């Protein structure tokens, strides 16, 4: 015990102590402590929203912590921005590419820290970029990574895996001792994952340390030495990977007990109203089929990036799937565009209210009647204000939107009420089927349970609902049946009786 503590002390390159981070409406990190040792791959696991990314962003200087301290190589470590972190030897490889698409690989690798040389044959303050030295260093880095790449290729022409390698190579041009990899395999094929793992092992053998963020447990067991589990912003446990198994990690990640907050009523489920057959879209969606019945609430669970939103958008015709066939009420229907799907009674309510759902600077009237303008206009297309008002009032009352004044600007509503406006807008079309994508994300507890009540009422009216949610208790509390998705496939189906958090998670991971 004593000896191990001593080794740990000597080897820790980065120590995080009691870090807190608060965002409006959410305590993202609470009293998180962990350490990273030299030459180890340390996995950080947790459900969506457990605080993994926030923690990484604090280490790399995107956000300052509210409280707590960090130590790097025994010295107090403070960081103002990612560039600062880079120059202190900590590099982060983001989920989304941070490269400059129109520049070449070489130009990208040294952006912001170009190698300079004196313009004169001797040292002078007049410096210019030394292309030759940069090329040499870049070639050296790629050689060490065991990669061949055209340094003059423009980044936008590269594939995802190659871009990621460029990001890693960029980190190595800083000679970073610590690399943070945030869900690095999210967009990679299995071959590419193998190449990445080979690279990670190579870097580890050079004595570099890596924080490896992932919710794919298989990868944790393949690549990591130690693992830390975060849940709801707290650090639950840190262990040697060889001392834990899958079930143990899952139980740490779930932890919560399910309270019976949900207004779920068991309804009589009707006939099949929608059948989805063989939806394919590149690597994102692989031959997905399922059925939906009248008055049913069908949950779709899965981790971020599993393809849930992509599935919903493909069904609706919001994206352009390779193949998608629907049978609505026994009639075949080929998905072309959202307008036609909507006419057939399928409405999609996006998780991103701001980008897709609502016109925030406009009034309730405008937003709620947006999709039903035909109903409230006369022959020459002039809007009848009294009709408009009527529709708005109907739905504002039904969903208890507050304030219900039709001239109120949506932007000034609370998050929960905005979400209700988003639902109202889709209900105005009188759809049979509603696809709700993360309907309660970012709304407070009160509004959340109100939205749940609304969903149940809709089911009671005979509408069918597809509920996409990352909130497991919500899925468990609301749904009659749950489909679990993973990497673009449906990996399991659970009836209400079979549902448990552990089961859903272990399928999804």
């Amino acid at each position, binding site marked *: 015990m004593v000896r191990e503590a001593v080794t740990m002390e000597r080897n820790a390159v980065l120590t995080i102590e009691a870090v807190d981070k608060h965002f409006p409406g959410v305590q993202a990190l609470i009293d998180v402590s962990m350490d990273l040792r030299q030459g180890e791959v340390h996995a950080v696991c947790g459900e969506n929203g457990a605080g993994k990314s926030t923690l990484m962003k604090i280490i790399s200087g995107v956000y300052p912590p509210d409280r707590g301290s960090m130590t790097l190589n025994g010295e107090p470590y403070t960081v103002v*921005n*990612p*560039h*600062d972190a*880079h*120059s202190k030897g900590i590099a982060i490889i983001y989920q989304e590419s*941070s*490269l*400059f*698409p*129109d*520049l*070449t690989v070489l*130009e990208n690798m040294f*952006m*912001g*820290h*170009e190698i*300079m040389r004196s313009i004169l044959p001797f040292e002078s303050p007049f410096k*210019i*970029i030394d*292309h030759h030295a940069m090329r040499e260093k870049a070639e050296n880095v790629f050689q060490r990574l065991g990669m061949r*790449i*055209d340094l*003059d*290729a*423009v980044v*936008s*022409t*590269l*594939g995802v*895996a*190659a871009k990621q390698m460029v990001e890693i190579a960029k980190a190595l041009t800083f000679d970073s001792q610590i690399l943070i990899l945030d869900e690095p395999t999210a967009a990679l094929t299995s*071959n*590419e994952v193998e190449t990445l793992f080979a690279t990670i092992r190579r870097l580890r053998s050079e004595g570099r340390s890596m924080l490896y963020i992932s919710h794919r447990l298989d990868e944790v067991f393949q690549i990591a030495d130690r693992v830390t589990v975060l849940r709801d912003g707290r650090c639950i446990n840190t262990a040697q990977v060889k001392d834990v198994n899958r079930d143990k990690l899952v139980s740490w990640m779930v932890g919560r007990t399910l309270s019976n907050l949900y207004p779920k009523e068991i309804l009589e489920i009707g006939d099949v109203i929608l059948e989805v057959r063989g939806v394919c879209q590149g690597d994102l969606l692989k031959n997905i089929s399922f059925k939906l019945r009248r008055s049913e609430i069908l949950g779709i669970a899965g981790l971020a990036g599993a393809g849930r939103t992509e599935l919903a958008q493909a069904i609706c015709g919001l994206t352009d799937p390779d193949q998608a066939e629907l049978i609505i009420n026994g009639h075949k229907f080929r998905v072309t565009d959202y307008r036609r799907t909507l006419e057939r009674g399928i409405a999609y309510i996006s998780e991103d209210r701001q980008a897709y759902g609502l016109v925030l600077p406009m009034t309730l009237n405008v937003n709620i009647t947006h999709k039903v303008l035909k109903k409230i206009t006369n022959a020459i297309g002039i809007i009848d204000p009294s009709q408009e008002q009527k529709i708005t009032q109907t739905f504002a009352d039904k969903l208890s939107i507050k304030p219900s004044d039709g001239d109120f600007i949506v932007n000034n509503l609370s998050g929960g009420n905005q979400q209700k406006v988003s639902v109202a807008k889709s209900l105005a079309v009188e759809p049979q089927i509603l696809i709700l994508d993360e309907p309660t994300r970012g709304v407070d507890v009160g509004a959340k349970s109100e939205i749940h009540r609304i969903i149940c009422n809709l089911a009671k009216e005979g509408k069918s609902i597809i509920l996409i949610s990352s909130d497991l208790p919500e899925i468990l509390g609301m749904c009659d049946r749950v489909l679990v998705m993973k990497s673009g496939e449906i990996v399991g189906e659970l009836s209400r009786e079979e549902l448990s958090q552990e089961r859903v998670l272990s399928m999804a991971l």
Partner: protein
Amino acid sequence: MKRNWTVTQELLLGAILLAIIVFLSLTTNFSTRSGIYSFMLDVSPTVVAAIAVGMVIFTGNIDISVGTISGFVAYTAGALVKAGAPMIIWVPAAITVGTLLAGINGFITIKFRVPSLVATLAMNMVHIGAYATVLPQSGWIENLGPRFTWFGRGRIFNLIPYNFVVMIVVAIVAMFVMKYTRFGRALYAVGGNRQSAIYSGINPDVTVMKVFFVEGFLMGISALLRAMTLNEVMPSVFVGRELFFISAAVVGGISIFGGSGRIIGAVMGAALVYLLSIAMIYYGVQDYYQFALQGIIILGAVFITVTDFGKIRRRLGRESEQRAS
């Protein structure tokens, strides 16, 4: 891959230029000594201006007031010459006026978060208003004499205008800056991916401010090159020139969205736009048609960069991926 493609794009531009020159030489007196001289003389300020505005476009910004800024530069030079100031005074003073006016555009853009399109469009109108109200006689100054025109009308071997030499120097320096300085790299970074630029330790606001100053400096040179060929200055002749300059940059393959393009493109774009306009003059095409045709050429150029090149680029990308795997 695209680097190769860019070369092709520039080769294409070069081929078009050559074709027009050959065509003009065969059918008109373009290739005579005086034809070549006047081409070199007149194209120089346009090239410098296209480089100036091109550098702003690299950062994803634009300056609509480059035309009207030139008017103030020319007026400053003319007024100082008329007042008897020596060249060592009036040249730097005129260029400083250009630098400061563009600096105001940059300042408004970064300080008040006004999109540069709006900020500079507004300044463009302010400038036109100021010509008429602030400048005496709307800035018209005549009979400036050889003290003003000796440089603009000067030539080497009785053929190459001094202006052309200045333009070549400006172009070489600009290319050098883009390739060998951090400032040059930063322009692409800010225009290509602002957030990543910040993460790379580049301050976008400082970069944008700097590029507007540089643009103003170059517009000072451009305006002087044009003004010094004439015996008089008249600011209003510069109104509307911005369209010419911006189209030259865009035709030369500088992406209007920022983040990509090359100085050589701006140079060739300016030459192309200019050659087309003199071709139209040679063939007696009316002014209005010239404008319309110019507009169609810009549309064509943008259409090609936004659609076809994009597609080809993506296809090339997919192939290189397959090759890599």
